[in-house]
């Protein structure tokens, strides 16, 4: 099954990510985000980072989850190469996401070709129709 697909967007980048479950679609959204900056297949998966984020609804949760990639990049020079064990739970009125990122610290052997500045809500969609689809526009 296709993990993600990019669409035309004048200034920024727009993608849809797919999955049989919400978690899988979120996982693929993380890979799509990463693909705008580097090739995740080429990143050594030698360092692990636990991720735990929460949001008041699924869209906010998705935005904060993807933002984690940018935060780890800017503050720790961490290049995410994989998102694993993504779990989403509803706790009261909030949604909690736990995941494990695997990747490496930046070094010259990696080519970084893009700079995602932020995850936006613009045209954001989360749909469940015989499988999940999330749509995200990121600011570049």
């Amino acid at each position: 099954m296709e993990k993600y697909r990019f669409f035309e967007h004048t200034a920024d980048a727009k993608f849809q990510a797919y999955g049989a479950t919400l978690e899988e679609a979120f996982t693929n959204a993380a890979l799509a985000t990463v693909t705008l900056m580097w090739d995740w297949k080429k990143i050594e998966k030698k360092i692990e980072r636990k991720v735990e984020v929460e949001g008041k609804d699924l869209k906010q949760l998705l935005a904060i989850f993807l933002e984690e990639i940018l935060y780890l990049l800017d503050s720790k020079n961490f290049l995410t190469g994989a998102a694993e064990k993504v779990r989403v739970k509803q706790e009261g009125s909030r949604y909690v996401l736990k995941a494990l990122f695997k990747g490496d610290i930046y070094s010259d052997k990696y080519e970084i070709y893009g700079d995602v500045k932020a995850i936006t809500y613009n045209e954001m969609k989360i749909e469940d129709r015989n499988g999940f689809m999330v749509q995200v526009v990121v600011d570049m």
Partner: protein
Amino acid sequence: MELKKINEYTWEIPKTGEMRVPALIYTSSKLLDNVKRDRTLLQARNVACLPGIQRTAYVMPDAHQGYGFPIGGVAAFDMDNGIISPGGVGYDINCGVRLLRTDYSERDIHEKRKQLLAEIFREVPAGVGKGGKTRLSRNVLLEVCTKGAEWAVENGYGTGDDLLRTEENGKMKGADSNCLSSRAIERGIPQLGTLGAGNHFLEIQKVSEIYDDRAAGAFGIHSRDQILVMIHCGSRGLGHQVASDYIRFMENKFGTRGLPDRELINAPIRSPLGEKYYKTMSAAVNFAFANRQMIAHWVRQVFKKVLGSSEGMDQVYDVCHNVAKFEKHKINGELKEVCIHRKGATRSFGPGREEIPAVYRSVGQPVIIPGSMGTSSYILVGTEEAERLSFGSTAHGAGRLMSRHEARRRFRGEKIKQDMEHKGIELMSTSWKGVAEEASGAYKDVDEVVRVSHEAGIGKLVAKVVPVGVMKG
């Protein structure tokens, strides 16, 4: 949507439905065709519906679709009944442009231009994933965000004269660094003094045409082939985090119901959250001023090392093109303080405004408009008319035409470098794919953008510059 042509360079979306004011687009028939293809006009109409909006929502000649507000959007809000919106400023807070002049001419540097560019590339950290040259403590970062470019000058980067020739003198006084989230601080610490990537660049340029001798003279630009240096970058991850943080705080506080687009989220200017956003955004603005101040200093050092001297490398000006500010403008015949949002728009104040440096007060403010990679850039001057026409604002660049994805499919970085070298332009970048994304073919025609600005009267042409050496982040 109804679109009414007012004159050759002005179109109007008349006030209908929930719009509180009309929207005006400064454009040409050629540029308008592109604008119509995306969501720019719809977004301009949405902005015109926001509470407390004054006079008109304006759209600049280089506009394209953003999120919430269009890029190239200008809107002013009443201080008491109006709003402030992170989406009206943009994610890259105080993304802006700094211009240095020199006494060198093209032939003085011709032999050494490769070396100049290579040294700059080594001295100015760029790209993504790497930190800067200095690792700051948290307290120093907070001081940077309080003092802006002033902090940089106090620490040996540049001169006091640079501050006088920077918008806001390089420091937003309303900044409160203590409002920054720990995430914003953590993203900022490694990134002070870095160019970044994407559309950010540093260019060694030469003057190719002077249209207005008087203004050019005032700006220290006197002859063709004179060498200038242009630096285009912003507040890096710190500013991006501030925008994301406050969009979230505002939607948690006020909800998103009734908003045609979640990114239009806003807070009343006078509310605690609105005030806090202004203070935090100002801290990010200061980070960006300090960032460009440090980079300018390193550029001067390289010129001194390679060419023997950096004498005469004065700053022409430093403008921010993503910002919200409190300014006084004439509304219904009365001078009134408003909260103006410029998102992908440059302030273009005319002669006399007290905000502009004394040395420029008789001619107007320098407006620096970077083109796309390898094409022309322009220096304009602000006009009095602009205050009436666009709250003293004009374009900020070429404006994208094509998505990055499409650009990468169509262009190859290596080929672009060859083509530029053919034209006598050196190029260095951290990534070939990044070069392809920024291909000039992916942008609007900057010549047409500045022509519209000039003809519409919102910023008048002073000089055209072309690159000699390009460093892309």
